């Protein structure tokens, strides 16, 4: 299979245009031979016109393709292309005129063949120049596209297309219909010529260049138009190709657009610097508002801030005064000023009104501006804007100028905006850092939670005489509740439950101390009262002054079927007696550990014992259960707990603690956040 090459519109149209031009030349020369030899060549002028139209269309297609292909053309490049084509076209035309002026009145000067050849060359160059310019202008006109402008341009293109065929209708005579068509195209051209939105984007230097190029184009247009008029008057031209409405219309369009562009660019020159300044300010603003990237720091933003502000105010010197971590102020980013001079100027400014009114501690300095006269040669005016982050003044921006009243309202506004944006950037940066830090703390807390969970026993010691089950949940990540068992002998067990005052991390630390003390003391096989006394001494050394621990310590002797216990400020244990099927709190006096850190404590320690029977049950718990509140603020309370326990005593210890916890949760309801740790130990005697 033969693969068809992808037709390249640019190349094809260029080739067709060249061929058409050659054909046009050939046809006209044939006609000239016919006239010279007084023979009817039989070639109608319409053939030339048709070839001319094909030529126009192909040149148009070629430039349209060529220009739109180079999307990255900037304005100056575009205008330069027009200008250079114009230069070539008028250059060649001038050369031809020069050639004829050298010939003078010689025979060659009136040679019809040569004249027509040059005429065709000039025609081709004029067409190239005008069509390329028209398409370049299209690019500029449609720079800021709106639906209306696009429609207007399309209409103009149709108008131009129609004007190409006008020649069949008017046969090259300059009549009213021709003038009428020209007026329509000219009016259209002028209305298109107001689309000059690209001009403000040129820099000052670019504007000068574009003015130069536009002058070249205007010159070329005028000169070539003059040439066309010359040729029209010449009697040696057989078929007039240039008195074509399309071509003359293009002359008018290219001329008016160039003229408008030239004038507007010229008058834009004085205000050019303002546009440039605004553009720079917009870019600076964008740089400031970009959040600080990882690896950068606040310094970068402050650097951009001082530079942007200096350029916005045309300041002669400036610097930043920033509070450091110790609340000392330091000078940063001094611009166009020596360190020593900065200090002197700083003192001078701050002794002056209104600058002396500044107060670091005062709130509400957002968008506040201090500006006024100073007398510190060569500086005559100063501007200070406080940097406020999170309602706290963290620094000041200083700008000074060598002229009086050097800061106008626009400058102050834009600098205030810069300062505001810089502060937001810095604040965001700090928040982000804080968020990262918090995330790390959360991770640490999770580890603490894991460690603390491992402090609670996985296995509870017991023998076949009783079964035991326990449960604990913390309100925060870590809690202060504690329970544990220890085998004091083959048939003797220690059981402890404790609650550390306060909650959260501090409580968790004290809870682990309590565990340590329990494990040390329990080795000595102490009686409950001994344990409490010794634990109080030990905790007295390490607990903070306002912290204490409540605990109940039980020794279960399954051989003697006896329970001995002491209570140190802990909430009393609930005991179910199977013999009379009654439930009661084991009341015994006792004081919390760490409340009294001397010998007097021992007076408050009591110990008692009782015999247990099969079917009896014990419920050890922490005050979180009692103080659990529902939405109305009612506490779960001792009575409710007693009732629940009494109704569940026949269940296994595990089932009992599960149903109690369930009861507590359903009591507080879903919308209430638990605000204390809950712990339960259930013992049931068989």
């Amino acid at each position, binding site marked *: 299979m033969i693969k068809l090459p992808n037709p390249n519109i640019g190349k094809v149209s260029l080739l067709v245009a060249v061929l058409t031009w050659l054909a046009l030349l050939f046809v006209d020369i044939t006609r000239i031979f016919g006239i010279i030899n007084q023979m009817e060549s039989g070639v109608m002028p319409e053939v030339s016109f048709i070839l001319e139209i094909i030529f126009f269309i192909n040149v148009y297609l070629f430039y349209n393709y060529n220009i739109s292909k180079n999307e990255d053309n900037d304005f100056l490049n575009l205008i330069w292309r027009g200008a250079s084509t114009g230069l070539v076209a008028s250059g060649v035309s001038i050369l031809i005129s020069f050639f004829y002026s050298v010939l003078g009145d010689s025979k060659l000067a009136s040679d019809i063949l040569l004249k027509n050849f040059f005429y065709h060359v000039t025609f081709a160059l004029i067409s190239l120049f005008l069509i390329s310019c028209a398409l370049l202008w299209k690019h500029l006109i449609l720079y800021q596209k709106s639906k209306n402008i696009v429609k207007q341009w399309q209409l103009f293109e149709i108008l131009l297309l129609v004007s190409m065929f006008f020649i069949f209708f008017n046969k090259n005579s300059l009549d009213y219909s021709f003038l009428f068509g020209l007026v329509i195209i000219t009016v259209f051209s002028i209305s298109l010529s107001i689309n000059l939105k690209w001009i403000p984007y040129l820099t000052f230097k670019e504007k000068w260049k574009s003015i130069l190029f536009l002058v070249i184009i205007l010159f070329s247009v005028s000169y070539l138009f003059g040439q066309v008029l010359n040729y029209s008057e010449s009697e040696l031209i057989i078929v007039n190709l240039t008195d074509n409405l399309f071509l003359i219309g293009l002359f008018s369009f290219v001329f008016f657009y160039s003229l408008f562009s030239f004038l507007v660019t010229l008058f834009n020159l004085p205000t050019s610097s303002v546009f440039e300044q605004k553009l720079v300010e917009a870019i600076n603003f964008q740089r400031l508002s970009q959040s600080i990237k990882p690896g950068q720091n606040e310094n970068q933003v402050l650097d951009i801030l001082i530079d942007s502000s200096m350029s916005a105010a045309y300041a002669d010197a400036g610097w930043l005064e920033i509070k450091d971590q110790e609340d000392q102020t330091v000078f940063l980013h001094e611009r166009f000023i020596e360190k020593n001079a900065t200090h002197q100027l700083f003192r001078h400014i701050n002794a002056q009104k209104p600058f002396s009114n500044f107060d670091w501690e005062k709130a509400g300095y957002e968008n506040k501006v201090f500006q006024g006269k100073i007398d510190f040669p060569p500086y005559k005016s100063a501007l200070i804007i406080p940097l406020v982050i999170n309602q706290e003044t963290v620094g000041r921006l200083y700008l000074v100028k060598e002229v009086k009243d050097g800061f106008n309202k626009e400058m102050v506004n834009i600098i205030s905006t810069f300062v505001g944006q810089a502060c937001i950037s810095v604040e965001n940066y700090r928040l982000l850092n804080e968020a990262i830090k918090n995330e790390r703390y959360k991770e640490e807390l999770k580890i603490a939670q894991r460690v603390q969970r491992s402090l609670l026993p996985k296995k509870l010691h017991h023998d076949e005489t009783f079964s035991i089950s326990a449960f604990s949940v913390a309100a925060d990540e870590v809690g202060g509740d504690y329970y544990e068992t220890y085998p004091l002998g083959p048939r003797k067990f220690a059981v402890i439950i404790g*609650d*550390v*005052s*306060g*909650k*959260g991390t501090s409580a968790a630390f004290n809870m682990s101390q309590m565990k340590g003390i329990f494990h040390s003391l329990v080795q000595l096989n102490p009686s409950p009262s001994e344990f409490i006394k010794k634990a109080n001494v030990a905790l007295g050394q390490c607990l903070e*002054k*306002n*912290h*204490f621990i*409540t605990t109940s310590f039980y020794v279960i002797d399954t051989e003697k079927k006896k329970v001995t216990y002491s209570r*140190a*400020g*802990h*909430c*009393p244990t609930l005991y179910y007696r199977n013999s009379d099927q009654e439930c009661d709190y084991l009341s015994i*006096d*006792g*004081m*919390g550990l760490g*409340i*009294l*850190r001397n010998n007097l404590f021992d007076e*408050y320690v009591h110990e008692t014992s009782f015999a247990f029977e099969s079917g009896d049950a014990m419920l050890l718990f922490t*005050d979180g259960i009692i*103080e659990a509140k529902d939405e109305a*603020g009612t*506490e779960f309370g001792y009575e409710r707990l007693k009732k629940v326990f009494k109704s569940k005593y026949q269940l296994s210890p595990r089932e009992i603690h599960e149903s109690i916890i369930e009861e507590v949760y359903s009591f507080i309801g879903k919308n209430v956040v638990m*605000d*204390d740790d809950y712990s339960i130990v259930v013992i049931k005697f068989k």
Partner: protein
Amino acid sequence: MLEIKIIKEEKYSILHLEGEVDASNSVELDSSIQGLLEEGESGILVDACHLEYISSAGLGVFMSYLEDFQERNIKLVIYGLKEKVFQVFVILGLDKLMDIKNTKEEALEEL
């Protein structure tokens, strides 16, 4: 929520507590007592008629001043405790170490 009001009388000050003392606001209670101590107050009445709840952290505040008061011969008397709140003091054994009275009159006698 906890509201603390300090009413200064000629020979003593009344610390009026309203609401709940918990871990989050026990610091306020502490600084109020600290403030009275710094002013050299030797008699403090704590009006607990409107105290709804006190957590272990709140009890810790009172507890931490026990020794200080004894050494400097300062009297602190709590009165008007609700039964439920009083029970918290009792269970912890603080009732044995602190002056707790039913009414303001009884408390004043104590001073």
